[in-house]
């Protein structure tokens, strides 16, 4: 298992469009993707879970990837979040 800490930078936070982008990119990797935010665990491959977590711009999160291609998945996840999730 690998993990990394990062911060949401896109202005609208994790709403529909950014969440969809994140989920569809993560679906390409076979490993599990989890996000810890505000002490809660969020399934990084579920758009419903991501939206319900209500992450805002500036929210600090930790991403965990576990399974095949975990490092690639983690790098991609961090890059997506840091680039502002397409916004």
């Amino acid at each position, binding site marked *: 298992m690998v993990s990394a800490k990062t*911060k949401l*930078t*896109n*202005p*609208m936070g994790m*709403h*529909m469009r950014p969440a*969809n982008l994140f*989920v569809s990119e993560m679906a390409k990797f076979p490993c599990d993707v989890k996000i810890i935010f505000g002490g809660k665990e969020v*399934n990084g*491959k*579920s*758009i*419903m*879970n991501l*939206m*319900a977590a*209500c992450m805002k*711009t*500036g929210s600090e999160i930790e991403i965990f990837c576990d399974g095949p291609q975990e490092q690639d998945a983690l790098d991609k996840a961090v890059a997506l979040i840091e680039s*502002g999730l397409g*916004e």
Partner: protein
Amino acid sequence: MTYQGVGASGGIGIGRVVRIVQADLDYSGVSFAGSEAEKERFQRAVEAFCAKTQEMAESMKTRVGEKEAEILSGQIMMLSDPFLQSQVEEAIDSGLCAEAAVDQVCGNFIEMFSSTGDELMGQRATDVGDIRTRMLELLLGVSTMRAAEAPAGSVLVAADFTPSMTVGIDKEKIAGIATEIGGKTSHSAILARALGIPAVLGVPNISKLLQDGQSVIVDGSKGIVLAEFDEHTLAEYEHLQQKEREAKRQLDAYRDCPTQDASGNRFAVYANIGKPEDAQAALEYGAEGIGLFRTEFLFMDRTSLPDEEEQYKAYIAVAETMAGKEVIIRTLDIGGDKDLPYLHLEKEENPFLGHRAIRYCLSNPEVFSVQLRALLRAGALHKNLKIMLPLITGVEEIRAAKELIETCKRQLQKEGAAYDADIPVGIMIETPAAARIADLLAKEADFFSIGTNDLTQYTLAVDRGNAKVEGLYTAFHPAVLRNIRDTITAAKQAGIPVGMCGEAAADKKLIPLLLAWGLDEFSVSPAAVLATRKTISEWSAQKSLATAQGAMELSTASEIESSLESST
């Protein structure tokens, strides 16, 4: 009978009632057919849902617009979510039929989304509710009559309309809309306005009070629904409808065309708004931007100041709605006739000449910087926000405000928050002082907006709330007109954009003068956007120049007004 509601889309609709009633979704008679069989039924319903919704999204896109279509594509993503699906399958494994499993899982998500108290999440809760209803219909094999199936001349009546109920709605067939739930910003209202269908929302029990096939009149301008009316009333309304249609047809031609005068010179018509949700109406009326977003609504009718997050949400909502178009946001313009009891402002002898607007903000930087931070952050998304400072009388006020803005930027930078580092900062020209030194102000401001209501009052020293002197209040006074002219000239010389956001910008008689002097942007109420664009199109550069010259040679307000009256 007259039923009162909220007029959400103007115009008069006359037709026969078609009630859209939700089909019975009671699944208590469904028995569990075994885990495998229920999962199979669920998956088949999901496939049917996605295929149908995709089709609806495509049709929405061409008929109504991108935004409505996006709501439907979002529903596909949500139902396709592996986490949601695994929850439904788990519920089925615990012995629930597919209907009960969908109902339960969707119910959990609705609760989760609504409990966040976030507006965007609230919309997602509505989406999940719609998914639940349509999945249950598919599983139970029942269907709700949709707006698309209504015959020509129908007045649609429902408790409320969900996005899926109104898919495929044909504006040629639907004469009007009446609902029990919903205000000016609900899905039904936005849809009705986009399609130009008269709508009255929020009429208690209307779907039970009216019968299918009954003749009704929907007056979307007054917000009333009439049933059981006499022939005289009908004839009157038919006449009114005819007149409205004619006027609308003429204006509609100006909705999607650029603003230009008869000589082909380009101008812009923006809208003035007071609430974030008005931005939608401004777009629907063809506004090319927001020339004045008054922020007072955020501060009024409450007991304490709104925090940065609340303000940010309001500003970003407008930025998002107007994406690709400019939004000029005026900072807090409090004082004068606008009091906030919770600030305990001192009673002043002369409130209009007192500690108000930019003066209050600069002496209360802890209040002002909350608003500035929210504006800077909200500008980051589409880079389409502009900050406008009210009641400027001198250069030092712009400098002080800009300094505070720079401090806010440095704080945001340190906090790692996204913000618009290049947000333009402009000023209202609404005092004679500002008009007199417009050339000096133009060196420090990124843009001007002339506020004619206050400029007139201050130039003529007339309190327009005082009946004894209100006759003296007129924008046609040569002193007011000279102030406007000189302000525009100063802006032109400095090469900064200049707009006008007072009532004068929509005045047919004043428009030729403003065109002649080179005003760039006319900001008017949303409902006046098309008429203003039409008036602009009727003036050639030559004719407006001659008209302005003639008018400015006259000596009194009444001479000027009547000369302009005769030339329009």
